[in-house]
């Protein structure tokens, strides 16, 4: 069976949907964070496959940038979560509703 662009895109879409589901239903902040990374990487996958099948390196360059930025983002995000945990002794979204009316 010949693997084409559509297969990659379907996998990418599935990964994205899984990540979104995780963001919406999981309660633990760290898991939500991991799900966010999953969504980010599904986008990476889509970009790489477009690059491969269109013979254009722009997509891969873009992915490198995204990975770099994601690394920085993880550092900031985890630091925020640790700080939050120290303050509230909890990393569950149900406990973080002080912005409620």
């Amino acid at each position, binding site marked *: 069976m010949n693997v084409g662009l559509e297969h990659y895109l379907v996998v990418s879409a599935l990964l994205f949907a899984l990540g979104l589901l995780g*963001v*919406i239903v999981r309660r633990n902040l760290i898991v939500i964070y991991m799900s966010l990374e999953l969504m980010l990487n599904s986008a990476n996958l889509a970009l790489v496959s477009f690059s491969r099948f269109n013979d254009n390196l722009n997509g891969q360059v873009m992915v490198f940038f995204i990975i770099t930025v994601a690394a920085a983002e993880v550092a900031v995000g985890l630091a925020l979560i640790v700080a939050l945990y120290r303050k509230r002794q909890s990393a569950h*979204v149900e406990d*973080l*509703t002080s*912005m*409620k009316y």
Partner: protein
Amino acid sequence: MKYEVLPWVILFLPLVAAGIITLFTLKNEKVSAVLSVGAIVTSFVATLLCFRAFRFSPQEFTINWLDLGTLQVDFGLRLDPLSLMMLLIVTGVGSLIHIYSIGYMKGDPGFSRFFACLSLFTFSMLGIVLANNFLQMFIFWELVGVSSYLLIGFWFEKASAADAAKKAFLTNRLGDFGFMLGILILWVTFHNTLNFDLIQQYIRENPALLGGGLTIAGLLIFCGAMGKSAQFPLHVWLPDAMEGPTPVSALIHAATMVAAGVYMLCRVFFIFTPDALTVISWVGGFTALLAALIAVQQNDIKRILAYSTLSQLGYMVMGVGLTAPEASMFHLTTHAFFKALLFLGAGSVIHAMHHEQDIWKMGALRKKMPVTFWTFMVGTLALAGVWPLSGFFSKDAILAAAQHHSIPLFILGVSVAALTTFYMFRLVFVAFCGVAKSHGVDHAHESPGVMVWPLRILAIMSIAGGVIGIEALFAGALKPGGEHPHGLLAQLVYPFQHAPVAALSGLAAFAVGLFLAWKLYWNAKEDLFTLKFSGLSKLMSNRFYFDEIYEATVIRIHDTIATISDWIDRWIVEGLCLGLVRGGTDLTGRALRLAQTGNLQTYAFLFVLGVAVVLWFVLGK
């Protein structure tokens, strides 16, 4: 030309004095008095110079003050015989009253404030006199209202004075409202000009304009004069205004402010149609009679003079209505002399009696205060119209006009003249002659020189005022072309040649009034009139119940409207309108804040949903 600056000096010096006193010298009484008196005396001297320069050549000095498209407002000073003569009265009589005040107000804690107010008042009054257009006149008109409010309520810690000030101000405002409407009508009728000269020219070129619209405008303008000159039915404020210090009564309520109404009528005489003039003459005549009747049964020395002022103002207004503005201005001038004299004399008496104002507690003051008595006597004789004192000539001029135009008003005028003599001699006999009626008299003594010298000067003016050519000057300004006597002798006998009936009736009225007063009050210890005609007397001494009638009608209606307005404001405007808007906003807010759950995942879900909807819109169609 150096004279051009003089009118501005005359006008603004008192304002400068008022400003300096208020800002810097309130603590220093001497400097305040010197500043205020100096300002008005300088104005007087400048007026004399102007009088020499511009008597025969009227001039206007104008600067453009407001320039808003079609609205052009000039700030102009108009110098012609009319305004010059009025300036002389205001600054001349004003100067004497200022000087007198130094003695009268001595020791008052508000001494400096008093002089600041006097100067402010002088400034406003000069502004009215010099104005060359309606708008400027209206502005100074209101300023006069304010400064008279300050002066009447000078002893504001006394409730009656504060109330009187309020009453005067509100009554004046009522008249001024009509004045303003009248100005607006003129503004529309005369194509955006309010300049006296231009309007006069316009009327002369389009006589057809003298129709119904102008009658209404004229009567509305007359409303303003009705307020300031205290004509019926807006006369109620003047007697109450006697709560102010006596120099104020003399300055404002005898010589200047109340004369402003008459002056304004003469200044804009050309806009009055015959119908309007008829109304004006009857209002004036009625006021004259009403006030004279009330004066007969008043016991407060200042109130008698106040009602007498009302009555004489009625005369002047009647004169304007009888198309004799020159006679009115003549009477205004002589009245300014002798009524200021009478008020200052009354002030001297009150000063000597330690603020006792009831004439039935005086008596025999003739020997204690000779200068005051004799000058007061001169004022009384002039007011009663005795030949050859000034009052005779001016009153005769009005009576002659009445005889010429309207016999009922002539009869009314003569009977008012008799009443005038009667109540004035009642005052003189009771207060100055007979026996002392209280112990206060024993301690009374003549007032200081600073107070009696103004009396002497005013007495001389009251005697001579009729024959020094004042009438000819006004006649030249207001009715050019008429023949007028020149020379002292010719003027002395002129009334008897010109209108013998009027002159002799006036003298007969004096004789009747004097005889009745002598019969009733010479050596009287109590008021025989009150005993004999108790019903009528009660009516008179209660001022025909006008205050009570106004209390029951105007004020009641006003209070009712105020209550209704209050209810509407409280329940309809605030309750219904504001309440609905406020409640609606509040309710929506409460509903909308339910969306703010604070749950991160709800927000995330809604965010994705939003993105999905947008994508569907962009791509799906």
